């Protein structure tokens, strides 16, 4: 192993069943159901997946869902707006913790 992440490994995702087939099958069945057209379109789900991929900083997911959103007709502006949604939530999640910091700061201050 030369690197922790190898783009070729993305194609081997399905191989996780090699060590535990039953759970892998359940996962992939669930995965397939989740991404089907439903109350949300497949395109909307793909954009959500792309945003989450950035939030969890998964290079495999970013690779896969960049291609997937392109193949669902999204353009540069749309995919970047989705990433900004993830960034706003990540940033907001951090900043809202500053209320805790402020509470503690005030608690210990005269």
């Amino acid at each position, binding site marked *: 192993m030369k690197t922790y992440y190898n783009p070729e490994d993305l194609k081997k995702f399905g191989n996780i069943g090699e060590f535990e087939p039953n759970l892998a099958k359940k996962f992939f069945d669930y995965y397939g159901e989740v991404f089907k057209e439903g109350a949300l379109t*497949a395109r909307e789900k793909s954009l959500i997946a792309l945003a989450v991929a950035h939030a969890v900083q998964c290079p495999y997911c970013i690779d896969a869902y960049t291609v997937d959103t*392109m193949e*669902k007709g999204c*353009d540069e502006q749309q995919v970047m707006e989705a990433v900004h949604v993830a960034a706003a939530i990540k940033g907001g999640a951090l900043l809202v913790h500053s209320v805790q910091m402020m509470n503690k700061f005030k608690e210990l201050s005269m």
Partner: protein
Amino acid sequence: MKSLKVQQHPLSPAQRQIETLEQSAFTPFAEKLDLIGLLPLKPTHLDIFQINMGKMCNQVCKHCHVDAGPDRKEIMTRDMMELCLIAIRKTSVTTIDLTGGAPEMNPDFRWFVEELSALGKKIIVRCNLTIIVANPKYNDLPDFFKKHQIEVVSSLPYFTAIKTDSQRGEGVFEKSIKALKMLNEVGYGIEGSNLIINLVYNPAGAFLPAAQHALELEFKLKLWKQYGIVFNSLFAITNIPVNRFLNYLITSNNYEGYMEKLVNAFNPGAAAGVMCRNTISVSWDGYLYDCDFNQMLELNVSTPLSRHLSDFNTEILENRNIVVNEHCYGCTAGAGSSCGGTTV
């Protein structure tokens, strides 16, 4: 930008492109067809007579499988058009599909359309839109199309300038919008007019097209809201690795990945419905091919007995074996692809 041919680009010769396609490490297309019982691939019936009127075009699109452009001078003569008319009369085709290049740039285009119109067949013109506004002599094309009840099929890769221009050239989007408004003004795309304008989407890069129906809805919404433009249907077409698109794939290091994507997306249903089964493609110099892509790769129809308009024989052509090669994976991927959009 010059055409590959005029650049004397190493990939320009058809044989070099075929060698590139055949050197790939994936399962040969013919083997895939054999596995599902479709080899040899046979025509179903001859329904569409597609004529490539020449390689001359006012645009130089980055993905063009014809390698068309202003520097290409190969165009169909009136004599060859006469042979087309004779051949068409021998068939029961329902549709004449005129393509190029920009077919409207052929000096005998209007004469030919008038002759075809008299045959009472459905006529499609693959119009690149910008030709309508390229020169005042083309400004009346919408009226001419209307007069002959021509179905217009036009490429518009996206509803934004940045994506359209990146594929089709600087300023193409703005001119296309202007031309679409001119077509709408004479009734094209307007409900109840019976004047059909269909748009063609193809990906601006090395990826597969989105679902046709979803794209159509989005295009209709965006073009109406932003420009007040209406159209009938959207055809989602896969880019085929021939000529400039093949060159783009190779120079951008996307060739292997794109071919792998096409091969993995092979759909037996799409294979059964490929357009070459009901189409014959005619080149500017009168030779016959199974499709426009085979024409660009100089893969003539397999039968030696009806290779040219001068020896056109419907019965022989309807019993020919269709010539396939690795670029055919483009028409069988996913929902399939044809000149009329998805096939599944």
